[in-house]
């Protein structure tokens, strides 16, 4: 099937709308104006909507949990005098060189192609400055990001675009991507506007043509053959580097156990709030489970097979701040990974951008995409108003890499400070000592998903034990 991007038809001159009759206020629950607009768009264009970013609908989130911090029965730690450890080690199961991070917050895989080379380099520099890792994406490793990143995780994706043994050996860890929270069961997508000559060369594909990555790995399907693939990756790298397996959160309990059975050192679970550079909107909003539910299932699965001490769990998908990170850690994650958050720190959805030391207003460029600063999800167009998700040199110049790096460093530091603030208040001298018993839920849904009691009760919906 060949698809075209939405073309904007010129609108007929509109006449001013007359005052609304009473019936017009009877909003349909099934067909509200947004749905009417969607149906009309489909009728106009003949295909699904493609967009970037993550789920926008309302979902149960970490916001529905709160901490039971210390008081009389437990004692808090002093914020400025007493240390709260954040060091995190990933890949202790088989790798001879596990990844040692200063903070349990990593930068998720985002491709060069989806992002500009300077955006990738800025993320790498910021991650290195705060002692954490960053991750390549579909399409391979760029020299800039390798040079900028002290710790770089190299993704092995179904597309194989840009995947080669040389870069494999240059990486610090390898992430076999089976799925992504934004589109579990779907492959990557890079629309022609973003396939510049350099992107095309790295992927050995023609420039300017829409690229669709496979949704399945071509050389293995299922855990039995994944085991062989992982062994092959280990052999190619002398059993030095940790092998992560990244899953889009769906049948989490089974998938985590199978990833471990196949030999993963680290399991990465990406909930449905996870972002993407481009995919079908229907995928983003209707596939996978929320991160809140995924983390508990994954942690439980590791405990059930008695691997929680050996295999580390990274959780991603809509992690925004230290509270999210603290809650994910309490529910059993070893680390969290963030994508959209660091992009926002870099300037995504900002009304202005800094070019040659001067602040410029980008509102008109957002409007040209049919959006506003604060609402943009137009990575797929390659027309990023602030120069982050683009391959157009004119737009790329809008991201001042040093300015962006500083902002991402500030963001990662702030998230870490928020995390340790909560951990100290819970009486922990190490963020990894946060535990589910430190949390209660504000809604029945969140209580059931996270497996913690509803606040003010000892009721854990769906569980036979009370606490």
């Amino acid at each position, binding site marked *: 099937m060949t698809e075209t991007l939405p073309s904007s038809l010129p609108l007929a001159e509109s006449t001013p709308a007359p005052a609304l009759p009473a019936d017009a206020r009877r909003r349909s629950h099934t067909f509200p104006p947004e749905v009417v607009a969607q149906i009309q768009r489909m009728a106009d264009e003949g295909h699904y909507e493609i967009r970037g970013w993550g789920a926008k609908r309302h979902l149960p989130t970490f916001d529905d949990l709160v901490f039971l911090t*210390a008081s*009389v029965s*437990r*004692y808090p730690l002093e914020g400025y005098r*007493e240390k709260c450890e954040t060091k995190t080690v990933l890949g202790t199961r088989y790798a001879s060189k596990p990844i040692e991070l200063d903070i349990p917050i990593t930068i998720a895989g985002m491709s060069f192609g989806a992002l500009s080379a300077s955006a990738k380099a800025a993320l790498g520099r910021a991650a290195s400055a705060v002692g954490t890792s960053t991750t390549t994406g579909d399409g391979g490793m760029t020299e800039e990001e390798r040079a900028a990143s002290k710790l770089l995780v190299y993704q092995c994706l179904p597309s194989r675009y840009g995947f080669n043994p040389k870069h494999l050996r240059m990486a610090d860890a390898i992430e076999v991507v089976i799925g992504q929270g934004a589109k579990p069961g779907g492959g990557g997508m890079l629309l022609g506007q973003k396939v510049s000559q350099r992107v095309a060369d790295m992927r050995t594909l023609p420039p300017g043509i829409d690229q669709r990555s496979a949704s399945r790995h071509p050389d293995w399907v299922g855990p039995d053959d994944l085991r062989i693939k992982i062994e092959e990756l280990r052999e190619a790298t002398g059993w030095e580097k940790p092998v992560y397996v990244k899953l889009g959160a769906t049948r989490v309990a089974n998938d985590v156990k199978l990833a471990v059975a196949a030999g993963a050192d680290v399991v990465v679970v990406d909930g449905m709030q996870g972002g993407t550079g481009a995919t079908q909107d229907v995928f983003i909003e209707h596939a996978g489970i929320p991160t809140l539910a995924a983390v508990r299932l994954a942690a439980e699965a590791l*405990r059930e097979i008695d691997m929680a001490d050996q295999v580390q769990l990274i959780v991603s998908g809509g992690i925004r701040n230290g509270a999210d990170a603290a809650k994910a850690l309490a529910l059993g994650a070893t680390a969290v990974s963030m994508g959209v958050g660091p992009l926002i720190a870099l300037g995504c959805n900002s009304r202005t951008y800094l070019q040659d030391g001067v602040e410029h207003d980008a509102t008109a460029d957002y409007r040209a995409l049919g959006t506003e600063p604060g609402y943009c999800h137009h990575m797929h167009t390659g027309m990023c108003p602030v120069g982050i998700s683009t391959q157009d040199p004119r737009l790329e110049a809008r991201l001042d890499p040093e300015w962006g790096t500083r902002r991402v460093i500030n963001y990662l530091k702030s998230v870490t400070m928020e995390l340790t603030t909560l951990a100290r208040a819970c009486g922990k*001298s190490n963020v990894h*000592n946060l*535990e589910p*018993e430190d949390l209660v839920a504000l809604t029945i849904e969140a209580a059931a998903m996270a497996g913690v009691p509803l606040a003010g009760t000892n009721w854990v919906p769906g569980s036979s034990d009370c606490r």
Partner: protein
Amino acid sequence: MCGIVGLHLKNPELYPRLGELLASMLDCMTSRGPDSAGLALYGDDADHQPRMEIFKDVGLPREICERYGVAKRSGYQGIGHTRMATESAVTTEHSHPFAPAENMALVHNGSFSNHASVRRRLESDGIRFVTDNDSEVAARYIAHQVGHGADLGDALRMVLKEMDGFFTLLVTTATQFAVMRDSFACKPAVIAETTDYVAMASEYHALASLPGIGSATVFEPAPEEVYTWTR
């Protein structure tokens, strides 16, 4: 929110007075823990084998000591605890000392902040718990390490790595008497040593009437330091 006391006698002439001395030390700790109290007393049996006995119950320390005739008991070392319950119930089972292995006893003052996770790990290793008390987790953790060949000092040092929160621990085995505080050393502890005994308590006044206390070396145990005395 508890008081702990311990006495390790070096001079056998004091053995007949073990119960009497400990009972009065424990009584001094009533205000720190009026809910329940308990003691572990170590003596030699008829075959000269060490034997540990635990007496614990709900109520005031003085009543419990009277109920079990503690003052008349002899032995070479003992530990005691007065409890003000924090997160778990006031019952005899929840009272200290915890005896996680033969001839091992533990009393704890403080509050662990990651005991639920440590408990889950121990349970997955097949360790069974009797209560939901955080101190039982420390006791079983130490017994587990000792059961795997660690000596008591090493097992206590592993507690510093594995367990978070605030704690002063006093742990005894048939031959050893060990004290350790966490890195914050917020929960009080004082040790007095003479040629006749080593005594430990949450507050000094529990030691004040011990014989020869005037010439004892009295000190506050340092944070993260394991102090052990061996018979």
